[in-house]
């Protein structure tokens, strides 16, 4: 029963049938077992469910699956294999940008999209880009330090 949608998920074509209003978040977590995308609020407020939809940052908890038909979805798992991830991840960990980790996949996805567009973002730009990703642990300093280190910007300790 239900509608069929076809989309590219981390580079692979996925055909899915079922409730067209199912949340992308649930399809990813429950049907595709891609649990790196987290549910922190389910209301588009926390950013822990962030994925890329045609390269744009979206909250997957707000996206009905019908909207991804014919489009491309990238999750943290799909971004995590390359060198850019290795560099970002290692700096996030080394600079204190990762504590409990509940926000981290969303932060990683948001930062990847930002860095794609602007390889040397200013601190203000990074803060703006991350405004939709709540982190309760780090006070954001560690995350901002990591990006500064990544782009070779000198930051106050």
């Amino acid at each position: 029963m239900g509608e069929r949608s076809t989309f590219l998920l981390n580079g692979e074509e996925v055909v899915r049938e079922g409730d067209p209003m199912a949340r992308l978040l649930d399809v990813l977590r429950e049907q595709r077992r891609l649990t790196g995308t987290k549910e922190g609020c389910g209301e588009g407020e926390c950013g822990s469910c962030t994925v890329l939809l045609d390269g744009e940052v979206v909250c997957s908890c707000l996206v009905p699956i019908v909207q991804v038909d014919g489009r491309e979805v990238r999750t943290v798992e799909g971004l995590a294999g390359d060198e850019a991830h290795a560099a970002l991840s290692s700096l996030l960990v080394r600079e204190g940008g990762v504590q409990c980790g509940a926000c981290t996949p969303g932060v990683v996805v948001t930062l990847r999209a930002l860095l794609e567009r602007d390889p040397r973002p200013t601190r203000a730009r990074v803060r703006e880009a991350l405004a939709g990703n709540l982190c309760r642990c780090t006070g954001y300093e560690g995350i901002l330090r990591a990006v500064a280190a990544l782009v070779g910007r000198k930051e106050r300790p």
Partner: protein
Amino acid sequence: MADLPDPPQSAATRVVGARPVRPDGAAKADGSAAYVDDLAIEGLWHGATLRSERPRARFAVDTSALAGSGVVCLTAADVPGRNRIALIADDWPVLADGETNHVGEALALVAAPSRAAAFAALGELRVTYEDLPAEVDLDAALAGSARELAACAVDHGDVEAGLSAAAHVVEATYETAHQEHAYIEPQGMIALPGPDSAVEVVGSLQCPYYVHHALVSLLGCEPDAVRVRQAVTGGGFGGKEDYPDLIAAHAVLLAARAGRPVKLVYDRREDMLATTRRHPSRVRHRTGVDAEGKLVAVDIDVLLDGGAYTTLSPVVLSRAVLHAAGPYACPNVRIRGRVLATHTATNGAFRGFGAPQTQFAAERQMDRVARVLGLDPLAIRERNAYRPGDVTPTGQVLDESASALQCLAEAERRTGFRARWQALEAERSRALDDGRPRAGIGLSLCWHGVGFTGNGERRMESPVAVRLERGGRLAVLAASTDIGQGTETVLAQIAAEAAGVPFEAVEVAPPDTALVPDSGPTVASRTVMVVGGILERAAGELARRVREGAPGLPFAAAGDAWLAEHGPLEVVERYADDGTEFDEETYRGVAYAVHGWGADVVEASVDPDTLIARTERATLVCDVGKVIHPLLCAGQVEGGSLQAFGWGHLEAARVTGGRLEQGSFSTYTIPTTLDAPAMETVLLEHPGGSGPRGAKGVGEIPMDGGAPALAAAIENAVGIAATRIPATPEVLFEAREAGDDDG
């Protein structure tokens, strides 16, 4: 430990004070770390909870619509044994039985093959209520017949004599609101029934042995029949200290009835509706000072709103009261504390555990007293701050690590606070009505007792074990959990340094009651000092035995030789009684083994028309004793301080009709990157206590000073002295209308 010889040190093993990379980081960043909701479990059913809509009512649940549906449904009548969560007092029901005492209380549980089916089943349940009079806040509790959940008092000297001899007596009352923990991963638990009524739970939690204790007492079974494991946990801040007992009990009851694993994971709204929050407070100060600004008497009344049930309120109150006079010497002190029950969701453990509430009041009161005397905020603190050798209101003599003055001096050196505060005071008095944002700067000074209050550590004993593995590797066995702060990393550092082995040679066993001893809960900033101190001894002792057995051999070879000759080697150490005493009746004696100290300077800007305040910069000076891992330690300071700023001005929490109005992240706003100030963290090292190399603990003190320093900065900017936080624009407007300002 002083009486063990120093282990041989090489660059590779000098790991305390270094920054080894936390081993859990990469898996968190690539999404592979498995939190409770991520676990794939065969045959898993999903639970859901029917919750009270009324603050206080008799109720009945009609479950007949589910008869024959195959869905599992439980009410209070299905709870075996006593329908209580075993914590301090015995008043917290697993499921409300006929009478509910707060909105969001669990009335019934269901489990079904899918989450959707479970929620559909909830919709089939019919509840009828018969409302009863409810007391939903402190005013109502004071006016009515509210239950007193706890009370305590500190008496030192003669307060009335002190006050009558004082040059000035300053009186004010301060209030703080509820605060949500807002960990990004909501509460969740999975129960897996085993053979012979054994049960295992795995979930998001801070204190595996609290859950274990609650389940053993609920099921009336042997301790071995219950196993509790921590999944990767997405933040706690105290919120996963007490509440997991309840959600674990629910999951276990559902799993037992369903005969299969059952998962309960809350969504954000349910988490905010039902789980614990920070106790709201009302603290009244009467402060007597001499003409020079030296404290001569303080009289403090502390009132906390406990919510519906006792949970940890007596311990929260005790810490609140013991910190209420702030880090200041005074010969005559009287502190009275009470917790009253209200018909609201239970308030429980939250980073700082009562101390942030009372220190908000104490710090704002110091600024008020300073104004009366014409002193600046730094001067009055310098005059009164504790020095080593000073005596606290419980009669405790402070040790050499009492670093309040050094914290103040460092804060002043970094920020030029005094001159800037004075300049901005002058500027405010001249300010034109031009609508431009006003700058302000504020200072706070705080202390925080490390480890359990009073005799808590003595009672716990806290066994910590270290086991020798092949190849010179060590396994650390402790119940301390990593909820983000980096416990696994710092415990490995402490063991490595004490044993003289590389960081990489140490493995910290997962917090699983089947594997690790009960070394106590991960609370009260006690992990590094208390657990770490015991671990330091255990690892040192193990290494000593191994090395003595084969002098001259490298550790790995010596260890293998030991194992070959004697079999397994595990060294268990326990909390060593330091001979101090605390009288829990009279509140006399050594309340805390040692204290952390901190001074915060906050720079804010305030729009004079909208009264919207922004934190721009924060300088956070914190003495944590020996710093084990500078990066992780700074992470506690930064994250805790931002949580404090959120509480101080953003996290509006208003309870109406017993229900928190701000029930989701769209209305309850925690700080985003745009709200966060640039933070400079300065770690001072004044070692003290029994911790490894004098490490004192850092988990909570960052929560103490942020809010009062921010409120002080707002006052410096626009002349409004908020006596209530969060200092939202509404609160500031009200304060201005009330004329409680000098602007």
